[in-house]
């Protein structure tokens, strides 16, 4: 008797051949399935390329970002020891004093709060102050000249050689400033820069006690110097004096880090597009494999092993995944050329748009992993297809829940989503929340579909017309598409709607109330001696003084007896080092304001002489300093040490425009400390605002004014740009969602062909089949979109509460539009797909499907 060779080796050549042969009549369909990952891969390749190019550009341009080899800065007047140090460093040195101040355009009396930079020396040593005319960048230091930011020049229609008044001194505009080291388009929009020579700062009268001046020193070394070693040596002294340093290396790191945040956010949006695509791949392959049951059963009859059948389709999916990934990488490389245009206002450097091969390879690899991983769940069920299907097509489910391999695949998918989101978010917590969120959304949709299948059967009444009964029965009969379509359409809707709701909330944050009693103009740096005069002047102009608040600057020396040095040594104290370096602006008053609420402890409005001072800490400050009610603080109020304790913790609504503080003192302590005042008023129009500003600047040149109307305009512009970036990236998700929808509905067409043809053969009219199909998709589309929207509302509420910390509200109109659009799109695509069946004679279709 012959023996059977049970250990037949896998012939990969034949498996490849069979994979190609089997794909013959399905290639266009397979390409449609895989097209859903093209946009996700495209988005990620674009963002990765952008990230790598930025890294390279930062490395190349870091010296120009800082403009010197070493920068030292702080906002305290340097003492003699520090002065000696600053004078001993570098082969070439420059210094700068910068502060916020009002300036007046003499010609048209226009006023505006600007960042004044009084400069002395040859800074910048790398890069230039880009000015028009070109030589103005260095020539302005030779006399009473100023360089004025280009947006400011445009805003006030100023020309070179016009005059501006800074404090008490008039300067001639030597040139307009296009770019200074490290400056972005957006930052100059919020605080436009005006350079003046340092030697005239004294004359302006702005450098007085109470003015918040930043002192900066720039150094250049002619020969290569070990800056890191130098920093190590001088850091303790700088730390003690409250000064910071910045080198080319630290700037590289910091700039890189801030762009990592930006690109992380963008990659996450890209990843959502990719995940949507994955849902498309998984659902398409699931149906594809179901249609292949007969072919697989025939092969099994011929003697093909389960593993061989599995491999044939795995090879097919890998091949098609590779094509999709390469297409995605190509698309990404094209999009990447556009990203610097979209993001240029946020960037202080010139971004190159070269092809990043690393990003291209990463994209292709990712696409391959994704397409295989998400196809694996339906692919493993191939192993369960019995050869008996050749004799009698079984309607049994081939996807057995008990299959351990299936659970392994699910675990791999979860592991992949968690790891990949970790790579994007940089936090395991964030990655876990993201993954769990997606899993919950998936479960909700599956449960909804399951309930729909169970309950539709009970709901259908025999009194309904045949068309209604048939349309609804399609939702639960064998080979129904209910679960797959609900999950894919629902997840697409949830992703798109969440992005949309968050975008609306973010933009809505900028549209702040400017009612009569809401302040929209803030006057600050008012000296105590000027307090009454400024208030009188405000009233004289017909404006209300909404509030006047004293402000005192101070630092924290100890938290519960621990100094900055202790915190550095012992990280278990969980006190942020920033608590000690920050210069706090505090106030004193006897009551809470309307934007504050005590959440712990009790408010004490008046201090008792000779006793420890009770202060109220803002919630987030208390978190950073790791303090609770009763904890001790040692406060350094301009050199005087004041022991205090936390008597209460407040929640502050920072979104409300008023003067809010991290620390509030009771009355009876700081009244005699050096202080300045802030006055809040409401101006009804731009004309009144301009007139009032002119009068204030002329009489009180040291007083600065923030016109919130102007800031709102800048913020509005900023949010428009951010909104544009969000929309640009969400565009990928939306396109992917539509492709997934098209492919999900399209693949379900193959399930419906047979019965539609039978119905036509039995005499159903085109109109009847059209109505049955429309009803099925209408119900599926509406329910999936509705569930998706409910998930989106839940997830956006969670994001708003825990991530963005902003009040939540839903604008129902656009949500309703999303619902209608998704539902209609499902019906339209469903009907378009059925058109072929409706228009051809039944026999033709029966023959072509033999």
């Amino acid at each position, binding site marked *: *008797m*012959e023996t*059977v*060779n*049970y250990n*037949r080796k896998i*012939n990969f050549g*034949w498996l490849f*051949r069979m994979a190609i*042969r*089997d*794909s*013959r*009549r*399905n290639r266009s369909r397979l390409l449609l399935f895989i097209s859903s990952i093209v946009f996700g891969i495209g988005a990620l390749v674009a963002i990765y390329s952008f990230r790598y190019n930025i890294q390279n550009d930062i490395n190349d341009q870091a010296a120009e970002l800082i403009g010197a080899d070493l920068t030292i800065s702080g906002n305290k007047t340097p003492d003699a020891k520090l002065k000696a140090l600053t004078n001993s460093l570098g082969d070439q040195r420059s210094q700068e004093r910068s502060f916020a101040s009002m300036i007046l355009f003499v010609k048209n009396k226009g006023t505006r709060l600007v960042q004044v930079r009084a400069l002395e020396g040859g800074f910048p040593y790398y890069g230039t102050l880009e000015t028009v005319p070109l030589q103005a960048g260095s020539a302005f230091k030779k006399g009473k000249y100023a360089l004025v930011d280009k947006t400011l020049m445009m805003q006030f229609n100023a020309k070179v050689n016009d005059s501006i008044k800074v404090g008490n001194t008039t300067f001639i505009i030597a040139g307009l400033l296009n770019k200074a080291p490290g400056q972005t388009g957006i930052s100059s929009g919020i605080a436009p820069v005006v350079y003046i020579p340092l030697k005239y700062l004294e004359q302006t009268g702005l450098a007085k006690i109470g003015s918040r001046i930043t002192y900066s020193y720039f150094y250049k070394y002619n020969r290569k110097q070990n800056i890191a070693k130098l920093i190590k040596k001088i850091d303790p002294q700088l730390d003690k004096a409250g000064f910071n340093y910045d080198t080319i290396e630290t700037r590289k790191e910091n700039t890189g880090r801030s762009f990592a945040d930006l690109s992380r956010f963008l990659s996450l949006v890209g990843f959502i597009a990719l995940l949507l695509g994955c849902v498309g791949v998984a659902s398409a392959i699931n149906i594809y494999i179901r249609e292949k049951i*007969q*072919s697989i059963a*025939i*092969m*099994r*009859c*011929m*003697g*093909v*092993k*389960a*593993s061989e059948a599995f491999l044939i389709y795995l090879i097919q999916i890998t091949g098609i995944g590779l094509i999709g990934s390469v297409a995605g990488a190509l698309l990404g490389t094209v999009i990447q050329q556009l990203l610097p245009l979209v993001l240029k206002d946020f960037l202080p450097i010139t971004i190159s748009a070269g092809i990043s091969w690393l990003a291209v390879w990463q994209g292709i690899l990712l696409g391959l992993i994704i397409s295989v991983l998400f196809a694996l769940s339906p692919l493993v069920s191939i192993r369960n297809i*019995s*050869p*008996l299907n*050749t*004799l*009698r097509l079984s309607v049994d489910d081939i996807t057995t829940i008990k299959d351990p391999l299936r659970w392994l695949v699910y675990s791999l998918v979860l592991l992949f989503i968690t790891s990949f989101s970790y790579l994007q978010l940089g936090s395991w917590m964030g990655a876990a929340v993201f993954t769990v969120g997606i899993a919950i959304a998936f479960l909700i949709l599956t449960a909804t579909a399951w309930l729909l299948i169970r309950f539709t059967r009970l709901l259908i009444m025999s009194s309904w017309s045949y068309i209604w009964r048939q349309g609804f029965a399609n939702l639960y009969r064998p080979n129904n598409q209910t679960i797959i379509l609900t999950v894919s359409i629902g997840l697409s809707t949830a992703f798109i709607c969440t992005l949309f709701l968050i975008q609306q909330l973010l933009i809505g944050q900028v549209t702040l109330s400017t009612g009569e009693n809401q302040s929209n103009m803030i006057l600050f740096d008012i000296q105590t001696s000027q307090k009454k005069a400024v208030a009188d002047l405000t009233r004289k102009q017909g404006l209300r003084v909404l509030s006047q608040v004293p402000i005192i600057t101070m630092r924290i020396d100890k938290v519960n007896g621990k100094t900055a040095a202790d915190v550095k040594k012992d990280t278990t104290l969980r006190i942020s080092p920033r608590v000690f370096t920050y210069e706090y602006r505090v106030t004193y008053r006897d009551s809470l304001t309307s934007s504050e609420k005590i959440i712990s402890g009790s408010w004490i409005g008046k201090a008792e002489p000779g006793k420890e001072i009770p202060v109220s800490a803002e919630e987030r400050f208390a978190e950073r300093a790791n303090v609770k009610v009763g904890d001790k603080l040692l406060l350094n109020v301009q050199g005087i040490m004041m022991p205090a304790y936390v008597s209460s913790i407040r929640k502050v609504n920072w979104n409300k425009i008023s003067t809010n503080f991290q620390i509030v003192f009771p009355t009876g302590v700081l009244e005699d400390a050096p202080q300045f005042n802030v006055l809040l008023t409401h101006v009804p129009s731009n004309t009144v605002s301009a007139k009032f500003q002119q009068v204030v600047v002329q009489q009180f040149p040291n007083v600065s004014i923030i016109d919130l109307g102007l800031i709102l305009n800048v913020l509005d512009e900023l949010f428009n740009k951010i909104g544009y970036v969000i929309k640009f990236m969400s565009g990928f998700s939306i396109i992917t969602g539509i492709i997934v929808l098209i492919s999900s509905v399209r693949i379900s067409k193959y399930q419906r062909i047979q019965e539609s043809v039978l119905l036509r053969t039995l005499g159903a009219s085109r109109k009847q089949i059209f109505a049955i199909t429309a009803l099925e998709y209408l119900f599926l589309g509406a329910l999936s979109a509705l569930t998706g929207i409910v998930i989106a509302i839940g997830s956006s509420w969670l994001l708003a509460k825990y991530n963005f910390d902003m009040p939540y509200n839903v604008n129902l109109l656009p949500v309703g539009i999303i619902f209608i659009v998704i539902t209609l799109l499902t019906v339209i695509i469903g009907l378009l797909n059925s058109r072929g069946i409706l228009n051809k004679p039944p026999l033709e279709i029966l*023959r*072509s499907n*033999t």
Partner: protein
Amino acid sequence: METILNIQNLNKTYKSAGRVLTVLDDINFSISTGSTNAIVGPSGSGKTTLLGLCAGLDSANAGIVELNGISLGNLSEDKRAQVRNQYVGFIFQNFQLLPTLTALENVMVPLELRGEKNIKARSQDLLDKVGLADRGHHYPAQLSGGEQQRVSLARAFSNSPKILFADEPTGNLDAETSEKVVKLIFDLNREAGTTLVLVTHDLELAAKTHRIIRIKGGKLVADDKTGNE
């Protein structure tokens, strides 16, 4: 004569809507090498289930199925697949050709699986024998029912099987085509010395075999040349 198929105390039950349904009940018979056999019975009598079990497409709840001396009950589905590839040929009522493969490629599959050489020429020869020499590059959808069944026949003989199982081989064909296909089945069978087991309710076709096994209600009710109870 040597036995190629031995069936002993074969039972097959299914669970349907919570009820246990006995499809085959205590079936016993054996088939000799080179013989031609028909399994007949009314619709729902269990004959297709019996064919599936004999060919190793399914496993029984009780009893023994020995194919060429190999007890199929002890084998995994993958091992049974390899037994089928080595010893078994199939002909189905609805032809069961792979729709994405050409006629020639369909015939080549069992040989390719075995890793044999000179496959193309041998498969082309088989197509020649069934009269489809010039249709090798056509896809199943481009062939008529009779042509598809002839391709299926060529495929069934391609791996030189010891036993050929045919499930209603003429069930989907008109009388004239059926006659040609039946002639081909018996001619090729004789030429290759293969054992034939065909399932049919066409008594005229069954009468062409050496032996008729009659099944009714899942039980073997007759086993003779004439098929009488």
